[in-house]
């Protein structure tokens, strides 16, 4: 099950970074990307047949690039827009991942993105995506129906 969660998470992340962020994601992480400095992390909560949280963390100078690409601008957007952009990336990844895991019948409510806080649970799935000189870390936490996490 963990493999399926990671596959769906990676698929949703790739789709979103390509189509919304105009980036070229890779599953392999090179040394530079691995050592890239953490810049920001946002999370979105979701509630439905199972509930939890998706955390998206970016490293290596990606935050302004993501925002500028999404807006189609040359200039670096404001910090507020940069965080908004990352939040929307997390929102779109989460929304596309959930039907892949749960099927298209279930209804989920996805809450507004927020700055990520520390989480006590271990993630049920974790994926890293190489993006140019940086990388994105995606961690999926499930707080209800732990059986989903253990399958």
């Amino acid at each position, binding site marked *: 099950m963990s493999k399926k969660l990671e596959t769906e998470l990676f698929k949703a992340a790739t789709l979103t970074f390509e189509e*919304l962020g105009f980036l070229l994601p890779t599953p392999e992480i090179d040394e530079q990307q691995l050592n890239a400095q953490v810049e920001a992390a946002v999370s979105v909560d979701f509630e439905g047949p199972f509930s939890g949280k998706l955390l998206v963390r970016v490293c290596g100078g990606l935050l302004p690039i993501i925002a500028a690409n999404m*807006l189609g601008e040359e200039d670096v957007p404001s910090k507020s827009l940069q965080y908004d952009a990352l939040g*929307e990336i997390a929102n779109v990844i989460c929304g596309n991942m959930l039907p892949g895991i749960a099927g298209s019948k279930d209804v989920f409510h*996805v809450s507004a993105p927020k700055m990520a806080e520390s989480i006590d649970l271990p993630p049920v799935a974790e994926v890293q995506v190489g993006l140019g000189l940086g990388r994105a870390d995606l961690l999926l936490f499930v707080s209800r129906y732990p059986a989903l996490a253990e399958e």
Partner: protein
Amino acid sequence: MALNILVVDDSSVMRAIIIKTLHLSQLPLGDVHQAANGQEALKVLDGNWIDLALVDINMPVMDGEEMINRLRQNPATSDLPIIIVSTEGSESRKEVLMQKGARFVHKPFTPETLRDAILRTLGGLDEQKAGDGTI
């Protein structure tokens, strides 16, 4: 005839993306209004003539589904053309919303997909003809 459009999404970046697409689509645009949730959107609709609303679903304060329900209960906005722009993946929820007269554009979208959905909704594009090619 200038089109007044309302864009409803809690992400200001997503609103900017949609508004940029509107400008690039060569539509006869009038006023473009923005709202960060359903409640703000209803206030805008109260005070302005709107020809088309582009609406997200998952928003704080009042989500898109509740906003659409209230719109449809008001005779002044019961026929307002609506395009939902959302990641919504539940077929049943989409079906309910489409039965309320809304079209659907799934995030992430290309600007051409949004443009074509707008043209179809406003009657400017045949159902058979799409940006992906054949006439």
